[in-house]
Each structure stands twice: as C-alpha cells, then as structure tokens.
C-alpha cells in the first residue's frame, strides 16, 4: 500500500525563500492492490506534483509518503522501484532503442551490480509484451511506432518492472480517440487480472468516468472532493473544479457516466 498523509510541497523559487505558493497542500491518498483512482484538476492544480511525490521523484516539505507503512525515503531506491512504476505522458528516448531493449530496462531494479539480464528477465519482458499486445513488435525500433503503440511499450516496461502500483501521468493525453480507448481497456484489464493499483491523472473526464473506481479532485493543490466516481463526478464538482457548466449523465450503452462541457462560467 502506497499512502500519502497530509503531504505538502512547494517548488523552490529562483530567488530562494518564498515557498508560499505550494503546488500540493495537505493531500492524503491511498493506492493499494486493485484500486483504480483518477486524479482530476485543471492545469497547475498539482496532479503531476502529487504523482512525483508518490513516486519519490520529489520529497514532501510536510507530511509523509509511506510504502507498507514505512516512509518512502527509508526504502532503498531500487526497492521502491520494484513496487512503484510510472508511465509518463510521452517518452522520447535519445537513441534508437528497440521495443525489447526498452522493456528489458524495466528489469533494472531487479538486477545486480552489473545489471545484465538473464533468461528469466527476458521471459518476464516477453510476458509484459504479451500482456500489452506488443509481442509482434519486440524487434521494432521504438521511434517507428505510433503514439498508442509507444504507450503500450512504456506500460509493458512498467509491467516488466513488476511493480504493484502504477502511477500514470496523463497517459492518453497525446493519443487519438482510438488509441485512447485501447489504452483505457488495457489499463482496466491489468487492474482486474493483475490486481495492479493504478493512479491516473487526466483531463479526460469521460476516460476517468469509464475506468476509475474512485476520484480525487485537486484544485490549487488541495483536495476539494474525493470518493467513488459515481458520487463525486457531479455537475457541481466539475463547476468548482474547472469553472464550467457541464452535463453529467449516465450513458446506458457506455455503461458509465459521461460529461459534456456546456459553457465557461466567468
């Protein structure tokens, strides 16, 4: 279980001193086995910062992030990496790695000092490629793939890492609707079959409505609403969050709530 308790964080300003404009304020969140939480909020509301705090890319100024009850900072880096993985919005390798190269890099926290993979690592990487439907692409160059295929490879890398918590930072933001649906279906399946705990930040309210069990709504770094998706994804909350009037209703064919933004409230 990955937990944040009352964490706050402010980015250090260039001239030092003033840390009053906190990016995350007093946020608590739990990501455990099989949970699927969506983090919603406008640009600059602290979604990415929260994910970075949970992934130990940043250290909170106040409050604690714990993994199985032990503060994240007290764990060795590689031990955290064996439990928590991150999927960014986009990945741009500097060199032309193949798909298998990249997925095998997910094995890094499991390897010894020389970091040379063995047959079992290869088997795990192949299994991750199978789970994401990318087996046929293993010797392709990553740079030649489409956006959706790239995201599948990055998710395969996270699976090869064998983490039980995945932090996904707007993983579908640069994909077309077809690829968005594919990735969403993949995440639902991984959440079900592998009991992965998923935390997903997104601006796509319909994506959140379709896949997330619970939502956390962030505004100016603070939680203004949290609970099961059906309870908190309301017109009133969306208005508070984004300052827009939206129509929220259950879509019988989709089987989940849908959100149609109507107009900006000024």
């Amino acid at each position, binding site marked *: 279980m990955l937990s944040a308790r009352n964490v706050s964080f402010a980015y250090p300003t260039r001239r030092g001193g003033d840390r009053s404009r906190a990016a995350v304020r007093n946020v608590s969140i739990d990501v455990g086995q099989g949970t699927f939480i969506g983090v919603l909020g406008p640009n600059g509301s602290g979604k990415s910062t929260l994910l970075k705090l949970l*992934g130990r*890319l940043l250290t909170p100024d106040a409050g604690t992030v714990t993994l199985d009850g032990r503060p994240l900072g007290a764990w060795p880096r590689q031990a955290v*990496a*064996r439990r928590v993985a991150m999927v960014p919005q986009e990945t741009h390798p*500097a060199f032309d*790695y193949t798909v298998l190269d990249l997925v095998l890099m997910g094995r*890094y926290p499991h390897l010894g000092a020389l970091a040379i993979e*063995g047959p079992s690592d290869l088997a795990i990487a192949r299994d991750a490629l199978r789970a994401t439907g990318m087996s046929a692409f293993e*010797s392709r*160059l990553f740079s030649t793939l489409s956006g959706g295929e790239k995201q599948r490879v990055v998710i395969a890398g996270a699976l090869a890492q064998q983490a039980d918590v995945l932090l996904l930072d707007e993983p579908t933001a640069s994909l077309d609707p077809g690829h968005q649906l594919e990735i969403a279906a993949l995440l639902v399946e991984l959440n079900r079959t592998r009991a992965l705990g998923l935390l997903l930040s997104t601006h796509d309210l319909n994506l959140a409505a379709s896949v997330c069990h619970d939502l956390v709504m962030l505004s100016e770094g603070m939680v203004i609403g949290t609970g099961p998706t059906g309870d908190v994804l309301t017109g009133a909350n969306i208005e508070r969050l984004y300052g827009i009037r939206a129509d929220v209703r259950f879509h019988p064919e989709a089987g989940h709530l849908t959100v149609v933004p109507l107009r900006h409230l000024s």
Partner: protein
Amino acid sequence: MPPTNGEGVVSARDRIAHSTIQGIRARLVTVCLGSVALALGAIVLAPLAGSTSISLAHAFDLTRPWASNVDAQIFFVARLPRVLAAALVGSALAASGVVFQALLRNPLATPFTLGISSGAALGAMLVLTIGGAFAATTWAAVPAASFAGALAAVSIVYALAAARHRGFSTSVLLLAGVTLNSFFSALILMLQYFADMASVMQTLRWLLGDLDVASYTPIVVALPMLVVAITAFLVLAPRLNLLSVSIDAAAMRGVDVVRTQRISFLSASLATGAAVSIGGPIGFVGIIVPHLVRLIVGPDHRLALPASLGFGAAFLVACDLVGRTVIAPLELPVGIVTAVIGGPFFLWLLVKHAQ
C-alpha cells in the same frame, strides 16, 4: 523476419536487435573480444608503416640482441609510443563522446563541439606557458590542468542545460559549444601572444591535434586518469541507458540521477582531459565513432561503450597513419585529418537529425 522501415541501415540494426534472443551476455562477449582485437590489430600493425619498412617478425624476435635489432628499435622506440598515444586518445575521446551524448540526451554532443576539449587545452596551455619556470613538475601538472579545464567547461555546459530543466536541445548545445570554443580560443591566443616564437610553433602543432609524442612519458602520466574514467564508464553503462530514455523514468527505476550525472560528467571530463594532455584538442572522434558504433551494435551503452573504446582506438590510429604517410616525408597533424572527415560528417548528422 524483423520488420524494416525502408532504410538499409535500420534493417541491419533490426537483424542485430533480433539476436537479443541470444542474450546480452553473448553479445557482450562478442563486442568486447571484437573491440580488443580491433584495437590490438591496429596497435601492432600501424608501427610497420613508415619511411623505413620494418618486419614484425624481426621486431618481436627475442633472440636478437636489442642493440643490433634495428627493427625492434624503430618499432618500440620510434613508432609505438605514437601509435599507443593515438589508441588511448581515440578510445578516451570516443567513449567520452558516448557518455556526453547519453547525459545530455543528444546524439550531437561531443567533447570537441561542446568546447570541453578547448577548455582542457586552455588548462594545459596555462601550465605549459606560465608553469614553464617550474619545468620539473610540468609533466604531472599538464594532465591535471587539462582535467581542470575540461571540468570548468563541463560545469558551464551543465549549468546551462540545468537552467532550462528539460533543455538539452541541439541549438542550446551548439550555441554553448560555439561560445565556449571562441572564448577559450581567445584566451589561448592571448597566451600565445605573450609567448616566444619557438614555443608558439610547438604549441600550434599541439593545438591542431598532434600525436607526435617523443616518449612513453605522457602516456604513462595520463594512463591512471584514463583507467579510472573508463572503469567508471563501464560501471555507469546500464544507468546511462535509463537516463538516455527519460530522466524521470530512470529515477523511477531506482537510479540516483544526480549522483549518476555527477560521476558521469566527472569521469568524462577526466578522460577528455587525459586525452587532450597527450594529443591536444583532436576533434570529431567523439561523434564519428559513437555514431558508427551505434549503427553496428545498437545504442545499448553496455555494448556501445566497450565497442567505442576499441573502435575509437583503431580509428585514431588509422587517421594518424594517414596523417604521417599521405604527404610523407611531411606529416599532417592528426587533428587536421579527423577534422577533414568529421566536419562534413557532423553537417550530415545535423541535417539528418533535423529531419
């Protein structure tokens, strides 16, 4: 069948990538053996060429007394130091090119174009010009001063890149390199201006990139620095892979990013400093060799680093061989040879990279 995407080079890469199935261990052994063989072959064969032809069998014939074995004398005293210098400098520049490219996440970064070589040259020049009075300690001070110069230049590049958080963009790197190169060159010219004519000619040759070492001394002095740097490179290789994919992803996989960056910059500066202290700021080795190596073994740094050590050695030995034979009995400084090959190569890469 591995899929191809229309380019011959890529399909060759795909074929090699396919052999991942045989496992990284087998590829590692093949690449290391190949690199050692390539470097050793170049080191043993290159001294045979020159104005006087000698025989390898005679040179290594231990039954002949040293005093009367002219072949051995020419091989070991006249030619081998220079060839060894070329091999070491080539390895160091090629491998530090690989490291800088991974760290700055840009395949166009090299010690020469970033101005790091000229920083090292300025350091060495300061000692040679000002420290001439303390000649007794100069031999040890030159490599140290070039390391300091390289480190100063690297710190500036790093600060520039860090100030932009995400930014190690090609244009920033090139501009930084051009600026640093002009700045250091101006300082070097100023030192030259106040030096006497005899030493100006000598240092000019060195500044062009010259491997005409008179003895084994500069090699022996720089060797410990190179050994430390190369060991660090090989240990860092897996982490460089992760950093070259994404800095955040590397951190999320347990890499101590700041520490890895610091050790890499330090060791790459150490290697560049050692190389410059031997042969002056020889350009373009750090970009030609890494690119060709990646085409052959792929970008995995566990393979690309050992391969560029061996290939870099053979490459610079070959360039120096061209330099000392092409207009014999005159000799071209090796830096001119690498620049003539490297300039167009770099432009071609720039165009390719922009597409």
